[in-house]
């Protein structure tokens, strides 16, 4: 690059995706119509637990325009139940069959019992109301603590509700607690929340001439392809899965869903395309949910504030079935259970329990928000116990900068970190002394204002295969990522990525990466994703992996193209390939930029075939990137709240976030991810909660009572950053899709406790709803 041309990487380029999105030209599954399509509507269980005595489909079948009504029995030829892809070495996981359409019994409200297929979207819903299902209600297991203690059982044949138990222990816990002067214990609840993407799920399956095309709103088209093929007995290459525009996933679309299998099966059986679009009510009741952990957390420390031992026992409510990664999710938090602190002994014990609720699985952060919430709330609790300032206690225990890469007790190696720097940066924005003065003054006027902090690190960029795969953590797939970079005759570039973005802006970020390396403008770089029929095999988008893993693959594939282009240019300009550089939009010999070739000129030579002897024509390259390690973003967040102590209502008045996601590729995209992430965390802390009643009926079945925060509930987020490049990839980048969510809940919770401290409140569990906050104040006052 010439001295004058600024690199595209690092610039807040506006999103290439946005024009089509904001002008309504994007194509979601529901926008795709195929001639002859049959619509599907599911008949779902109103019972939380019941045997199916009979299903009478005659009235529904007789209605005009209805082609078929299918039940679980009709799909008896499926090769197997829905997948669960976690087989941790040495751990037994109870995994009763989970069928796309129930067989014999239903286990939670919304469990699908039958599907109606017909010519009209309205007619199938009408007909579904005419399917008569006789249920014999069975006793329900709703409360996870009661469920783990014994009957009634969700799956009576197991004789237990326990799914599994899994432990990750590092260091000598007993010695750690023995060395402690002070030990505290808290019951920490990370309640159940929903993914709630604005676009619900949708599928359009089209089986014809021995091959299947499935359009589905998913984060993982390749995984869906694999399991559709396996369950339907098709050869994988005969299945093409396309994730068109996807309107948010948040983990809820990292799944292989029964509706996908049913639509494909029905399309093959009926010889017609089959389409199903999820309603919001369905999304709230059957699309997998997240969190739902009750933990007993013990922390030991010396008087002078050295944390010596940390023990977390989690009871994870996994709902009625294991889905793709259900029992694994709490374990993802275990690897960073000790947060950004140097703690010699850290043990996490996880017990999974079945209940008659919607299954849980990955939801934004997946295990790491829970872990971060626990350690960050506990640090505040311990500071109060020891009479040490909360931030001082953190500083005393931070893993020092010199230790990186740092092996921690949980067995992973934190690739990079500078926790003091991010906290210092945060305190440049938040003057704690001034805040304390203001706080005292406001209290005199009856206003209870509090500040809370969260200094966090997380593990993301899900890869490498050797750790995540079968021999490591036990996921039945190595989590590498692929990219293919194709330079066209015109000098335009098409990038195929195995990631499957659904709102993150990766088309823009990847274009920036490619543009710099090839000396072209990002506008001529098109990024194709979410289609198993185009690029190479891929692994999808989740776990903040797409940039660190998929973007790195794009960079590597581009570098291969550059290397080949350099050879072509070297031959043309009679120079050595090592002396060719990309500068000012041209490939030229170092030191003589006036004599250069554009990418289009290089491509011309590559495709005419006038390439140096021994070289293949063409200009495209493929890479499979499998990094050495995860990446570990970190940061420090502060939240300031006002609590109306008469009503218990919490109002977030200020939120400041300092995040370190390594070298920034596009600050605008980062800000977008951090904003959304914090909103998610504030949402969980204050508003969102999936509630089932004692009978297993879903109380929060719509957005009227599942309270997603809106812009009106959120402050302007103040963002800053530090930059600590990751050594895990060549670009020094880290994921940032989950960081805000991971950091936010303890910052909010600690702020509320700080606000209410003068009223005697020293601890509270989420969700911090007005009624709960008010009750907590009443109880504290009564003590």
């Amino acid at each position, binding site marked *: 690059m010439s001295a004058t041309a600024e690199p595209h990487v690092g610039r807040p380029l506006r999103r290439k995706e946005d024009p089509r999105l904001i002008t309504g030209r994007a194509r979601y599954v529901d926008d795709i119509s195929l001639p002859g399509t049959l619509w599907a509507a599911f008949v779902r269980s109103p019972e939380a637990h019941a045997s199916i005595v009979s299903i009478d489909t005659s009235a529904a079948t007789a209605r005009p325009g209805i082609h078929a009504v299918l039940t679980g029995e009709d799909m008896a030829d499926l090769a197997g139940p829905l997948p669960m892809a976690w087989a941790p070495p040495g751990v037994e996981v109870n995994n009763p069959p989970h069928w796309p359409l129930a067989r014999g019994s239903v286990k939670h409200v919304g469990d699908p019992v039958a599907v109606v297929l017909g010519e009209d979207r309205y007619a199938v819903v009408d007909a579904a109301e005419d399917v008569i299902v006789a249920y014999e209600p069975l006793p329900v297991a709703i409360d996870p603590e009661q469920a783990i203690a014994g009957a009634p059982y969700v799956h009576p044949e197991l004789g237990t509700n326990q799914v599994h138990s899994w432990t990750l222990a590092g260091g000598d816990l007993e010695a750690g607690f023995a060395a402690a002067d002070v030990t505290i214990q808290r019951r920490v609840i990370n309640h159940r929340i929903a993914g709630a993407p604005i676009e619900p799920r949708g599928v359009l399956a089209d089986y014809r001439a021995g091959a299947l095309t499935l359009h589905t709103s998913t984060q993982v088209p390749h995984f869906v392809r694999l399991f559709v093929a396996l369950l339907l007995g098709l050869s994988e290459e005969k299945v093409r899965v396309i994730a068109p525009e996807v309107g948010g996933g948040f983990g809820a679309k990292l799944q292989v869903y029964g509706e996908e299998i049913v639509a494909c099966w029905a399309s093959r059986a009926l010889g017609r395309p089959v389409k199903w679009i999820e309603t919001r009510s369905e999304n709230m009741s059957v699309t997998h949910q997240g969190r739902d952990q009750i933990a007993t957390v013990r922390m030991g420390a010396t008087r002078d504030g050295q944390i010596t031992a940390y023990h977390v026992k989690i009871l994870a409510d996994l709902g009625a079935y294991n889905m793709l990664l259900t029992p694994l999710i709490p374990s993802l938090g275990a690897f960073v259970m000790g947060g950004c602190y140097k703690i010699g002994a850290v043990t996490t014990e996880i017990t999974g329990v079945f209940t008659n609720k919607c299954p849980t699985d990955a939801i934004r952060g997946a295990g790491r928000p829970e872990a971060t919430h626990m350690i960050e709330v506990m640090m505040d609790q311990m500071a109060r116990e020891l009479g040490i300032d909360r931030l001082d206690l953190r500083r005393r225990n931070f893993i020092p900068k010199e230790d990186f890469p740092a092996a921690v007790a949980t067995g992973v190696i934190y690739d990079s970190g500078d926790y003091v720097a991010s906290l210092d940066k945060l305190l440049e924005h938040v003057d704690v002394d001034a805040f304390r003065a203001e706080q005292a003054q406001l209290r005199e006027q009856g206003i209870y204002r509090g500040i809370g902090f969260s200094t966090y690190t997380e593990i993301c960029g899900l890869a490498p295969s050797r750790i995540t795969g079968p021999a490591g953590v036990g996921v039945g797939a190595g989590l590498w990522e692929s990219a293919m970079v194709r330079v066209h005759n015109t000098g335009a570039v098409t990038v195929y990525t195995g990631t499957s973005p659904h709102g993150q802006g990766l088309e823009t970020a990847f274009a920036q990466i490619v543009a710099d390396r090839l000396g072209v403008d990002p506008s001529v770089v098109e990024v194709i994703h979410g289609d198993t029929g185009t690029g190479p095999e891929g692994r999808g988008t989740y776990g903040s992996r797409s940039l660190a893993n998929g973007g790195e693959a794009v960079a590597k594939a581009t570098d291969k193209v550059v290397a080949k282009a350099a050879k072509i240019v070297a031959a043309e300009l009679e120079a050595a390939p090592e002396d060719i550089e990309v500068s000012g939009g041209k490939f030229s010999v170092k030191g003589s930029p006036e004599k250069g070739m554009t990418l289009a000129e290089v491509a011309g030579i590559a495709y005419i075939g006038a390439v140096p002897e021994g070289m293949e024509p063409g200009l495209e390259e493929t890479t499979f990137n499998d990094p050495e390690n995860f990446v570990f973003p970190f940061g420090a967040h502060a939240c300031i709240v006002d609590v109306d102590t008469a009503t218990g209502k919490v109002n977030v008045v200020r939120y400041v976030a300092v995040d370190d996601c390594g070298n920034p590729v596009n600050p605008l995209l980062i800000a977008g991810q951090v904003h959304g992430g914090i909103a998610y965390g504030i949402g969980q802390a204050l508003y969102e909660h999936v509630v089932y009643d004692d009978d297993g009926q879903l109380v929060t079945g719509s957005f009227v009572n599942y309270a997603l925060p809106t812009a009106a509930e959120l402050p302007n987020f103040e963002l800053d950053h530090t930059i600590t490049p990751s050594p895990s990839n060549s670009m020094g980048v880290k994921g940032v899709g989950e960081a805000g969510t991971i950091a936010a809940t303890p910052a909010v919770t600690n702020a509320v406790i700080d606000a209410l401290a003068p009223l005697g409140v020293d601890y509270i569990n989420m969700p911090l709803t007005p*009624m709960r906050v008010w009750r907590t104040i009443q109880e504290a006052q009564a003590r």
Partner: protein
Amino acid sequence: MITAEFDYQRVSSVADAVAALQAGGEDAKLLAGGHSLVPLMKLRLAAPSRLIDISGVPGLAGIERDGAQWRIGALTPHARLAASDVGLLNRVAATIADPQVRNRGTIGGSLAHGDPASDLPAAVLALDGSVVAHGPDGERTIAASAFFSDYMETALAPDEMLCEVRVPAMDGYGFGYEKFHRRAEDWAVVAVAAAVKVLDGACVDVRVALTNMASTPLRAGAVEAALRGQPATAEAVAAAAQRAAEGTDPPADLDADADYKCHLARVLCERALVAALAPA
């Protein structure tokens, strides 16, 4: 939105609407702004066989001062009410949901729907307002105190259309509406409407009504009695507000159990009265 099947009919006069209601039988429903009815149809919690769209009936969207009272057309959207000079109702309408809902939803629909969690019913009740209904036998006026009969039930006959809402002008009163909800766009968990007239430092008239504290909106008679004739002081207001939950029967829901709702009623009542007493 996959509703059950229904017939749709647009009418352009009150007489046509009433005739259509009569012809349509039990399952025919008027459609005004659609912001209460259509969400129910979407979930198939309501499945009217016929929708009679009155939104195009001329002359029903407007606010007029008529001597000592305000006459508000049934099709007046919340947004217009919010921007009007109608005491109390203007500040109440401004708290309804978001601009989209306020632009579409109508006062007639809000009252006819009879949801105790809606904001306008308690306000109209507080002001001793009335509604004018047209039916096959002509016009009748129903006092707000006789209008809300039970949860989502009103004194309107199935073949009657609400055409106008009347409230006294309340000159010289101060107003307060305190709505407690979790998010800006939510329905009230509890809300309290107050109108107070002060003469020579004393509360000579006090009107207080409660949203979502029973199956219908309620007047807080005990508060009114306790404050009427008392000095307009913080102490008197606080003492009176303590009685806000008397005679209520709030249903427990996700956000609030009965105890907490009663507590909220007292807190909000005090705040609403303080606002009503604040210099304009």
